[in-house]
């Protein structure tokens, strides 16, 4: 990589006709500029903190600025050193790379570079105003030098971008392979599960007269159900999501989800309260998929809350970047999410339950994404769990399916 950069630098120098004359001018430029360096460096950083987008990369306050000012001084010192060998190219390239690493958009680096150039040029103009020939020579050399430096920075950006794309492609490839493998595994497991199920049920039929063995068979059946559910969830997560939209009421979907949890609510003091304004209630959604989302919220809440468990679904209009959403808040009176849970709640395989695939929320996020909606957490410090499900608000255009339903 460095070899290439070095060669490129050599070519560019030739292209710009860098000569011994330039080397001589550099000595003069150096003696003119260096005394002013502390002043324009001060000015340079004062300008940066005025621009939030650029200042965002400076996280260490005044101390960091002081360090950066030192680095910039070294950068100028080296720029004007007159020694443009392999080490020089290497160090300049690294400076460029460092800017890539801290995530600064190349546009800002270019602009900052332009500002330094302007400051240097102003000093030359002032110092050489009585020697126009020298001024012209020095200006030309300074521009060549700065353009070469900028070429090195751009090369660092290009190299990083290439590397990142390469890494991303590798990562995508690996994920795709894992996805295919898991889907294949789940399918094959289903065949094995079918044999287990068949054998267990055959045994059940054979052992009808021996009720003492029924609890064992029942436990076998439950374990098979759990395994089946696990594979179904993994497949659901891996499979492409095709929505079947229809005009439906969220209150109805949430109620259905709640009713599907009869088993989990058995023996519990748990209540679902819904306050959804009529104008926010309906939307063009996949009822089955959204029921999965609500079921997942409710299941988690039931697992986390002590009795009496109170779950609330409320709604309000919301606008993000000019787009209208209906925001459904799903809150409970449980302990809420820990700091780590807040960070990872939507990651696949993250779970706080001892039994659970950790795919529920990841699937919910996929479903909401597919609806063009958003799934977010309420602010830090919310009491209890606080999920925000935002769904786009659209005009109702009756579909064939709606009409069919009468």
């Amino acid at each position, binding site marked *: 990589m460095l070899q290439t950069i070095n060669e490129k630098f050599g070519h560019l120098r030739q292209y710009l006709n860098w000569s011994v004359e330039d080397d001589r001018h550099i000595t003069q430029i150096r003696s003119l500029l260096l005394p002013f360096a502390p002043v324009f460096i001060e000015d340079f950083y004062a300008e940066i903190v005025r621009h939030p987008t650029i200042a965002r990369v400076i996280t260490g306050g005044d101390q960091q600025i002081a360090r950066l000012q030192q680095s910039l001084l070294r950068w100028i010192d080296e720029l004007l050193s007159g020694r443009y060998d392999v080490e020089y190219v290497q160090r300049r390239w690294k400076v460029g790379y460092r800017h890539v690493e801290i995530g600064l958009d190349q546009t800002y680096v270019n602009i900052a570079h332009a500002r330094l150039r302007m400051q240097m040029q102003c000093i030359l103009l002032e110092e050489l105003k009585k020697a126009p020939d020298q001024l012209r020579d020095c200006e030309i050399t300074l521009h060549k030098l700065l353009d070469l430096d900028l070429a090195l920075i751009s090369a660092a950006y290009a190299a990083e971008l290439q590397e990142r794309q390469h890494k991303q492609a590798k990562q995508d490839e690996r994920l795709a392979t894992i996805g295919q493998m898991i889907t294949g595994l789940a399918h*094959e497991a289903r*065949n094995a599960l*079918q*044999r287990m*199920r*068949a054998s267990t*049920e*055959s045994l*059940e*039929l054979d052992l009808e007269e021996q009720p003492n063995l029924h609890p064992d068979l029942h436990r076998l059946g439950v374990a098979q159900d759990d395994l089946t559910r696990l594979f179904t969830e993994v497949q659901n997560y891996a499979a492409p999501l095709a929505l079947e939209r229809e005009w439906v009421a969220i209150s109805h979907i949430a109620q259905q989800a709640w009713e599907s949890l009869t088993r989990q609510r058995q023996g519990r003091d748990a209540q679902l309260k819904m306050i959804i304004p009529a104008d926010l209630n309906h939307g063009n959604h996949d009822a089955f998929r959204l029921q999965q989302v609500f079921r997942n919220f409710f299941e988690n809440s039931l697992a986390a809350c002590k009795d009496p468990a109170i779950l609330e679904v409320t709604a309000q209009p919301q606008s993000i970047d000019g787009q209208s959403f209906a925001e459904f808040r799903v809150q409970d009176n449980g302990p809420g999410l820990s700091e780590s849970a807040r960070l990872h709640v939507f990651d696949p395989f993250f779970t706080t339950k001892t039994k659970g695939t950790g795919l529920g929320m990841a699937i919910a996020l996929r479903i909401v994404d597919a609806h063009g909606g958003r799934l977010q957490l309420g602010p830090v410090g919310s009491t209890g769990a606080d999920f925000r499900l935002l769904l786009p608000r659209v005009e109702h255009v009756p579909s064939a399916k709606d009409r069919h339903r009468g």
Partner: protein
Amino acid sequence: MSPPLRIAIADDESEIRDHYSKIIKRLGHEVVAAVDTGNALIEVCQRLHPDLIITDVHMPGLDGDQAVREVWKCETIPTILISAYDQPKDFPPAGINVAWAYLSKPVKRLDFEAAIRATMNTATFE
């Protein structure tokens, strides 16, 4: 009590065939054939004309759904497809009016029994 059905089953795994046979017999129906390939399924259907086909989708050689498509060209026998994979695309083929059901593996006995009843009810209704 509805009259006993003559049922053909196809699955490449013997445990599964045995299990289906056991359930079917318990329900008072008759297993006229239990085969392990799609080609064999076509052959028994053409020879024995069962009232109902219960078949796995993925089998060595010809898949169950492909075999059924072939059978339906001559006779629309009600069918239950069972698969660990997604429901086959374009099934049933357009223009064919036949009672059918799809079950996803692993199938529970109660669902299996319900599917037989539902498919035959639809078939009778038609």
